[in-house]
């Protein structure tokens, strides 16, 4: 099972659409893992990067200057680094609805959704304790630029990057991320890869800012396939819900699942998100 799941979520590879029997095998595998670990649900797609982030010893940590929330650069012994956001360093930053103290859980919840939908946008993100403080630790992406350091038109004109931006747009709706702006995604131009970061203000009911530019744009098949596969995989969906409920409220989980269904329905009907659907997508 591990090999199969690992293969499905390997980076930089176009993921094959599993056949029915493969999905069944996957479902059986998840069922058996569920029965053996009834108490605490195990995330089935755990990557080596996650294991490192979660378990390897911290080499050093440097508090970072600036920002309304506390952030630290953490070096992991023998293997990579991450951005640590401790719970105690969370500030509401002028927001009303998503409360400080829950951001680190929302970071992890967004990563879980990303994995289950096979969007591959969010760097591995775990929850762990560092120096007695609990928080989210996300793999650091070296040599990356933020969206603010790149020209928006350059990204839109590049077919591969544009498709990832469309995916990010859909992802933000699914997780109801009220905080997407140019500083909250990373770009590696040479690798033509976009990474979504900063999801502390997701799953709430803060005002959702939609980028206007992707309404009426055909939605790449890869996106609807990922969503459809997830929705048709009953046990996987249940497991995802259970994992999310450990992090956010059951209402927020239900709302997220409804949004996944709603967005797929719209894409299936229109092949795009019509501008006229905007009002039905927001609370």
């Amino acid at each position: 099972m591990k090999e199969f799941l690992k293969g499905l979520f390997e980076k930089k590879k176009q993921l094959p659409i599993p056949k029915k029997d493969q999905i069944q095998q996957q479902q059986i595998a998840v069922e058996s893992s569920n029965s053996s670990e009834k108490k605490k649900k195990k995330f089935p797609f755990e990557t080596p990067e996650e294991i490192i982030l979660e378990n390897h010893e911290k080499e050093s940590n440097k508090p970072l200057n600036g920002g309304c929330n506390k952030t630290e650069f953490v070096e992991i012994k023998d293997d990579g680094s991450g951005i640590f956001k401790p719970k105690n360093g969370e500030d509401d930053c002028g927001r009303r609805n998503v409360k400080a103290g829950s951001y680190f859980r929302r970071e992890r919840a967004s990563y879980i959704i990303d994995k289950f939908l096979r969007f591959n946008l969010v760097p591995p993100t775990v929850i762990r304790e560092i120096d007695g403080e609990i928080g989210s630790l996300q793999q650091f992406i070296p040599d990356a630029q933020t969206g603010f350091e790149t020209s928006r038109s350059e990204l839109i004109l590049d077919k591969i990057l544009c498709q990832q931006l469309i995916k990010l747009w859909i992802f933000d709706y699914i997780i109801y991320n009220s905080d997407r702006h140019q500083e909250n995604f990373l770009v590696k131009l040479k690798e033509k890869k976009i990474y979504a970061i900063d999801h502390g203000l997701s799953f709430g009911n803060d005002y959702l800012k939609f980028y206007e530019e992707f309404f009426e744009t055909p939605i790449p098949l890869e996106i609807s396939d990922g969503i459809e596969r997830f929705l048709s995989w009953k046990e996987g969906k249940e497991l995802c819900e259970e994992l999310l409920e450990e992090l956010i409220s059951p209402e927020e989980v239900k709302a997220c699942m409804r949004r996944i269904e709603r967005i797929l329905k719209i894409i299936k009907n229109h092949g795009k998100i019509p501008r006229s659907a905007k009002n039905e997508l927001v609370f």
Partner: protein
Amino acid sequence: MVRYQDLQKTNWFFKLFILMKMIMKFVEIYKIQNDGTQRVMAVCKMVGETVVCEGEDKALIDNLKSEGIWDDSKTPPQKLFPKDGIRFLERLNFVFTSGYLNASQVKEE
């Protein structure tokens, strides 16, 4: 530039007003390096009633000017641009907070 000799000739209220104007308010935007250190990527400062951003990364400076930043404390959120002055400057710290690009609080010198 205001000279101290000029200040001496004016009344105390006007002196205070000019001194306040002479205090420069600014925000530094830091970029993280691969080793976790940070370097100043851009500086945004009040010049009169508006904000001027300067730095080596042209795209960042251009985006700050043309795209602006979101003020999420308002419902619905509003865009702020350098022309909005101190409100823009104060909000940078809330926007640049990912760790990759962080903005300081408003500093004075």
